[in-house]
């Protein structure tokens, strides 16, 4: 009897923009096809399509699990269950490629990178026909040690893979669903800082032959094809050749693909897209903010976005606009303006994904793997682009999350939906209505998460007000004199003044403890005090650092009697300074927009002030950058 291999692609535990459109990822389907061709009894479960039958899973000889970052916790849970039942578990996919150590805590084997060669060498080795040590791209246990073999080079001859057989997917019916996805290439030549595709599939652009793609369309005969390439038009000449062949063969189902704005500027390509029945394009606009585009290394301008929208609109090709919001150069206005422009441009649909440090992306490597920036959450299921998991620089994580969802709600408004209906664009109407519904459910499901983010801003203020309920509100904030004397001082005074509050200076307690009176005297005279925090003393700042340390000690000793202290992070690379200021601002207003305005105006004031512009001390860098 044939041995049984069960492949599972778990679904995300949270709702996301693609929840209502299942376009299966191809990995498990391809591997399932290859296994079947080699005589295995194969089951393929894509949880977004149909529930996983655990009876099948637990009666397998080997179980393979494919995972993304946001599905990692779910995948690990499944892997643990299977492993406990004594069945070997192989795990693969982007997330575990970059974090194989983590994955080995739950699985027996990790297939890193592209899996089609590694998996079969692994099966051979498991059956005694090869050595684990020699399998490139494999991580595994040897006794109690985790071993990571060298990486496997990327697969060059893509055509040697069989056509993925959708018939293997439990619960899938291509004719009923009408759509499938086909990968015609792998890799992306660009290096956007938030993206893990080049890390996984490389910069080189590897392609299936045109004959092969034509055959794949012919075999599946769908109403709609999603070309699953990371960048369908990376090689325009080849894309044109493919589209010409589709036209010649009369194989022109409706199709969509991920592309860049440049695609619109090649008139021949645009004509061919139309002629070959392109239905919609998924364009990674990423940002309307030129600074953010540069920060992302997107190599695209705002002007090109506008030009490409015009060209596609003129060609009658619908646009799904993909944006990443929450970069250090963005604020709330950027996000809402994105949704407004998307309406003005009559995009069919949009996704505003919150910038997320995905393992494998340059951002993750530079900022988070190094510890230069702090992650607010390490629960990978939140890494789906709909949850803020870090501190942005010009808004709080709470505001970022609210704005990303709120701006999408603005876009999927009744007004916009009815406008689509008026244009008799019923498909868009349906999509937009679906998205509106999804957002409503998202809010319901994530109310607790948003509440938690909100409380990080307001918690201190609410506590402070409660504990000093017998004291009248003073609308004053205590700030150590050495902070007021620093470059930051005038900025802080101006910031609080804009919130209608005034600054009361206090002198720092002396280390030997002979005069802590100054600080104790302001109790009851202020609503809170600013407690500066620096992680380490840099050269020339030792004295400053010492003062902070003694203040910290004094506060620790006088917890009961001291006014509520709010940490003001001075030297962190992320948005901690802004978060601190928002927490302080929350003592004087509930309106975070007002806090933001005060912050912006204060920075503008500092920038125009000639005396500080030239000789900014390290401590000030945070406020002006």
């Amino acid at each position, binding site marked *: 009897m044939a041995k049984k291999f069960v492949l599972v692609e778990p679904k995300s535990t949270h709702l996301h923009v693609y929840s209502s459109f299942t376009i299966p990822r191809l990995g498990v389907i391809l591997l399932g096809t290859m296994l079947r061709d080699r005589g295995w009894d194969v089951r393929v479960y894509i949880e977004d399509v149909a529930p996983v039958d655990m009876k099948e899973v637990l009666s397998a000889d080997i179980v393979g699990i494919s995972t993304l970052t946001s599905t990692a916790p779910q995948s690990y849970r499944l892997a643990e269950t299977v492993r406990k039942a004594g069945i070997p578990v192989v795990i693969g996919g982007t997330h575990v490629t970059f974090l194989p150590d983590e994955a080995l805590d739950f699985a027996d084997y990790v297939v890193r990178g592209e899996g089609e060669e590694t998996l079969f060498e692994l099966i051979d080795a498991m059956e005694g026909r090869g050595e684990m040590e020699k399998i490139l791209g494999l991580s595994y246990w040897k006794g109690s040690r985790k071993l990571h073999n060298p990486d496997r080079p990327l697969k060059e001859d893509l055509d040697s893979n069989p056509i993925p057989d959708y018939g293997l997917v439990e619960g899938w019916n291509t004719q009923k669903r009408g759509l499938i996805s086909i990968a015609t290439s792998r890799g992306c030549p660009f290096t956007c800082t938030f993206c893990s595709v080049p890390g996984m599939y490389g910069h080189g*652009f590897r392609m299936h032959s045109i004959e092969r793609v034509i055959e794949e369309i012919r075999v599946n005969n769908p109403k709609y094809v999603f070309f699953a390439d990371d960048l369908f*038009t*990376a*090689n*325009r000449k080849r894309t044109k050749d493919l589209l*010409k062949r589709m036209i010649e063969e009369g194989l022109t189902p409706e199709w969509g693909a991920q592309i860049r704005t440049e695609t619109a500027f090649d008139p*021949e390509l645009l*004509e061919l897209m139309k*002629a070959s029945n392109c239905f919609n394009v998924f364009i990674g606009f990423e940002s309307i903010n030129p600074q953010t585009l540069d920060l992302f290394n997107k190599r695209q301008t705002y002007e090109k976005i506008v030009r490409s929208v015009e060209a596609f609109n003129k060609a009658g090709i619908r646009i799904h606009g993909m944006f990443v919001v929450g970069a250090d150069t963005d604020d709330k206005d950027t996000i809402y303006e994105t949704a407004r422009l998307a309406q003005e441009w009559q995009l069919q649909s949009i996704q505003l994904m919150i910038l997320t440090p995905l393992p494998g992306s340059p951002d993750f490597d530079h900022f988070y793997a190094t510890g230069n920036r702090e992650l607010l959450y390490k629960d990978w299921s939140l890494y789906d682009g709909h949850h803020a998991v870090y501190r942005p620089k010009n808004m709080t994580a709470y505001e970022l999350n609210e704005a990303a969802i709120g701006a999408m709600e603005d876009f999927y408004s009744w007004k916009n939906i009815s406008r689509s209906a008026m244009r008799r664009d019923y498909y868009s109407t349906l999509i937009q209505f679906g998205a509106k519904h999804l957002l409503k459910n998202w809010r319901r499901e994530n109310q607790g998460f948003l509440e938690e983010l909100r409380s990080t801003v307001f918690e201190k203020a609410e506590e402070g007000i409660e504990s000093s309920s017998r004291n009248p509100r003073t609308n004053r904030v205590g700030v150590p004199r050495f902070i007021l004397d620093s470059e930051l001082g005038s900025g802080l005074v101006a910031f609080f003044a804009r919130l209608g509050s005034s600054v009361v200076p206090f002198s720092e307690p002396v280390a030997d403890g002979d005069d802590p009176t100054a600080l104790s005297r302001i109790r009851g005279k202020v609503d809170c005090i600013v407690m500066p925090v620096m992680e380490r003393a840099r050269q020339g700042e030792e004295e400053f650092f010492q003062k902070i340390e003694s203040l910290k000690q004094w506060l620790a000793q006088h917890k009961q009697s001291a006014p509520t202290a709010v940490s003001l992070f001075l030297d962190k690379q992320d948005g901690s300074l802004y978060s601190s200021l928002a927490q302080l601002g929350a003592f004087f207003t509930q309106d975070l927009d007002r806090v933001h305005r005060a912050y912006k105006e204060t920075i503008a004031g500092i920038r125009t002030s000639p005396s500080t512009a030239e000789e900014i001390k390290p401590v000030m860098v945070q406020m002006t950058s």
Partner: protein
Amino acid sequence: MESAPGAGLRRLIASKEMVKEAWMSIMIADNCISCGACLPECPNDAISEGDPIYVIDPDLCTECIGFHDEPQCAAVCPIDECCIPDPNYVETKEQLLAKKDRIHPNG
């Protein structure tokens, strides 16, 4: 939806056959992302990997004349306005054909 190429496409193809007046060597601008897609496409091996971006040897670039309708480096480049005509190397069609014959003496 018609399955044959549309009228616009036919017009476009026709326009490409129009007589071109100015010929120039192609150069790679500094917005090159060094993906290397152009390297295998050049019929004259004029492209090499430079630091930090790829470079075209103007002595070897013939705008693909005699081989293709358009310069292949530009046709496969993922960036627009990257493989662009180099105004420092204006040549006539005859000069380019002569260059091609020199590079490929056996046709």
